[in-house]
């Protein structure tokens, strides 16, 4: 046994002590958790630790190698920053959910087997759902429920894939899988749901903007990056991922341009950035895997920074729609600067983080001579600057003056943004620090004259396009409206399905019910005196014949008598009694009748066969 505990344990056990503490002690405790975790992390040697036998299998809580360590470092850093940002929150449950969520994410990246991976995976889904619900608005309740349903679907895909895979291979070890059958395909899709692949991405853009100000900062860091880790572990070099990633990088930017809710704009750009990582994993070379992990590291920081800046705006003004904001640089200059650092980082300006990380993926694509993918990603690079790099700061802090005069957010929020901004610049200026912890050795140099020049031209001429479109009034005006996305399928079609169940299907059920209850009562009535029916028919025929004869030959006194008997029979059929008495006529009963019919058919079938 080694001299360290699984990092997940510190967070998960630590979370349950939060409600016991009050005031400053709680704040100190919350901040100490990730610090303690980080010190613990530094003591963990490479290898497999904390393994237990469970039935016939070996559960490994701590598989430590360079890939899991990169993610562990950034998860600890971002936990500290997010906890600092949320420090003033007076909601113990939310603090607990956030710390548990971070702990489960650490559990996922250190899980050496499928069973612990799946358990931590599901804990993440539950705690994340709570972080969305914690805003306690109607919109967040329903968005949280949709989030949960989609992740339950993803979790079930993952679980069924795991079960198939275990029965095929006999091992629960989680290592390289590759697409080679139904089991791995289901695992692949399970990871893909959390990775927000195109078509199954809408849980992200639907729910993240509805979460709390602080909750979204946590959410933006963990779920998608755990999926990136899992894909990098299980499916590096899967060619399908290259195309999935390129589409992910492309399509959200169109939605981001016309979106009004600025946190939703950031959610779209989150998918766009994850697309670059997915491409990197799909290529599967050492350079591209390095690029994907490095970009995940950088993305967690700048995306959290942008969400924190927008959260600060929301915290101070209560508004987040571009139509309601503008001119905030006047009263929130620090937040504005931090936001612009985040914007410059996500846009990959030289000296900011993504310049040193995203370019590794671009370089890997170019080295493989994938020209279409390269053009798609270059388009996405220009587009991300356009919507996240310019649109976010421009509409919140500049643009038309909304007349809102507020002040900077509380010190803890400013500090959290400051640390994230510092790290974004630090990685951009001194990428060697990040390169030294990547899974494979790095011999990539980001700062070459042509690369800097190319990137500056790309960005500044995208900015030129934005400027000219704004000045000419062609740029689409911000509107108070929502934009449909793939969640239409489960939001509208699910409602249509419910309507189908409620109206036509219910009517169908009702008609069957009416038909069967009517036929049963008819059978029951028939069964009171079944033999009277042939008697009635015979008497009716007899009466008819007599009447017909009478019309040609003249009146016949017997007709009156026959009519009297016929009417008496009808009365007796209705009551089941002899006419004028209480004595039952031939009470065969329903049971006997049914038995008779069944025996009849039995004999019939017996005779035929």
């Amino acid at each position: 046994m080694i001299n360290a505990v699984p990092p997940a344990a510190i967070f998960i056990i630590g979370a349950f002590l939060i409600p016991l503490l009050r005031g400053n002690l709680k704040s100190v405790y919350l901040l100490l958790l990730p610090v303690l975790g980080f010190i613990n992390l530094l003591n963990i040697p490479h290898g497999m630790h904390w393994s237990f036998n469970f039935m016939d299998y070996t559960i490994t809580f701590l598989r430590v190698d360079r890939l899991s360590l990169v993610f562990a470092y950034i998860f600890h850093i971002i936990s500290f920053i997010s906890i600092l940002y949320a420090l003033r929150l007076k909601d113990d449950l939310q603090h607990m959910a956030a710390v548990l969520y971070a702990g489960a994410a650490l559990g996922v990246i250190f899980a050496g087997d499928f069973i612990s991976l799946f358990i931590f995976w599901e804990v993440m889904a539950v705690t994340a759902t709570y972080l969305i619900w914690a805003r306690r608005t109607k919109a967040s309740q329903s968005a949280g429920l949709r989030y949960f349903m989609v992740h339950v679907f993803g979790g079930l895909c993952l679980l069924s894939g795991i079960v198939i895979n275990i029965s095929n291979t006999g091992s629960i070890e989680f290592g390289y899988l590759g697409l080679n059958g139904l089991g791995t395909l289901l695992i692949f899709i399970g990871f893909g749901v959390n990775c927000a692949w195109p078509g199954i991405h809408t849980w992200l853009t639907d729910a993240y903007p509805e979460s709390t100000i602080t909750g979204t900062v946590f959410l933006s860091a963990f779920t998608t990056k755990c999926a990136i880790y899992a894909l990098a572990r299980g499916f590096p070099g899967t060619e399908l991922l290259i195309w999935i990633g390129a589409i992910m990088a492309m399509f959200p930017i169109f939605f981001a341009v016309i979106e009004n809710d600025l946190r939703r704009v950031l959610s779209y750009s989150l998918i766009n950035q994850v697309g670059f990582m997915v491409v990197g994993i799909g290529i599967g070379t050492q350079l591209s895997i390095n690029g994907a992990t490095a970009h995940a590291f950088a993305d967690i920081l700048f995306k959290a920074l942008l969400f924190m800046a927008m959260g600060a705006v929301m915290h101070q003004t209560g508004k987040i729609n571009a139509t309601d904001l503008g001119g905030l640089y006047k009263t929130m200059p620090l937040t504005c600067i931090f936001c612009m650092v985040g914007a410059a980082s996500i846009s990959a300006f030289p000296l900011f983080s993504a310049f040193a990380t995203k370019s590794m993926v671009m370089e890997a694509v170019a080295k493989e001579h994938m020209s279409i993918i390269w053009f798609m990603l270059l388009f996405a690079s220009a587009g991300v600057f356009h919507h996240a790099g310019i649109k976010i700061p421009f509409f919140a802090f500049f643009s038309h003056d909304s007349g809102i005069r507020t002040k900077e957010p509380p010190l803890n929020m400013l500090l959290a943004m400051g640390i994230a901004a510092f790290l974004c610049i630090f990685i951009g200026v001194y990428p060697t620090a990040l390169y030294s912890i990547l899974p494979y050795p790095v011999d990539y140099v980001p700062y070459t004259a042509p690369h800097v020049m190319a990137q500056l031209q790309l960005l500044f001429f995208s900015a030129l396009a934005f400027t000219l479109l704004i000045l000419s009034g062609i740029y689409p005006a911000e509107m108070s409206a929502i934009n449909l996305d793939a969640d239409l399928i489960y939001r509208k079609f699910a409602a249509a399905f419910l309507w189908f169940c409620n109206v036509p299907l219910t009517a169908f059920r009702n008609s069957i019910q009416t038909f069967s209850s009517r036929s049963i009562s008819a059978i029951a009535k028939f069964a009171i005196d079944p033999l009277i029916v042939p008697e009635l028919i015979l008497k009716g025929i007899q009466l008819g014949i007599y009447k017909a004869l009478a019309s040609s030959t003249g009146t016949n006194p017997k007709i009156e008598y026959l009519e009297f008997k016929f009417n008496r029979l009808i009365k007796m059929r209705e009551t089941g009694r002899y006419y004028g008495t209480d004595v039952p006529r031939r009470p065969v009963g329903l049971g006997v009748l049914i038995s008779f019919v069944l025996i009849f058919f039995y004999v019939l079938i017996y005779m035929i066969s």
Partner: protein
Amino acid sequence: MKEEKKYLFDKPENVQRLLRGFWALLILLLGIDLFISKHPYFHWEEWPEFYAVYGFVACVCLVLASKYILRPIVKRKENYYD
């Protein structure tokens, strides 16, 4: 009533200054590009001002496609789902 404080971009001349600086920077970037030796993976990267043209065209296409194609298809009232 007290006059509200004038901020940086409340003065049109400051906005003009910013824009003039921006134009100058663009011209500078176009100029330097001609003197940089490139070692590209794709031959079109060697074309002069390739990245400037691509960035500009990409963003104009992005905005026009979003405004005139995507928005008419997907835009709904804010209470559409309620």
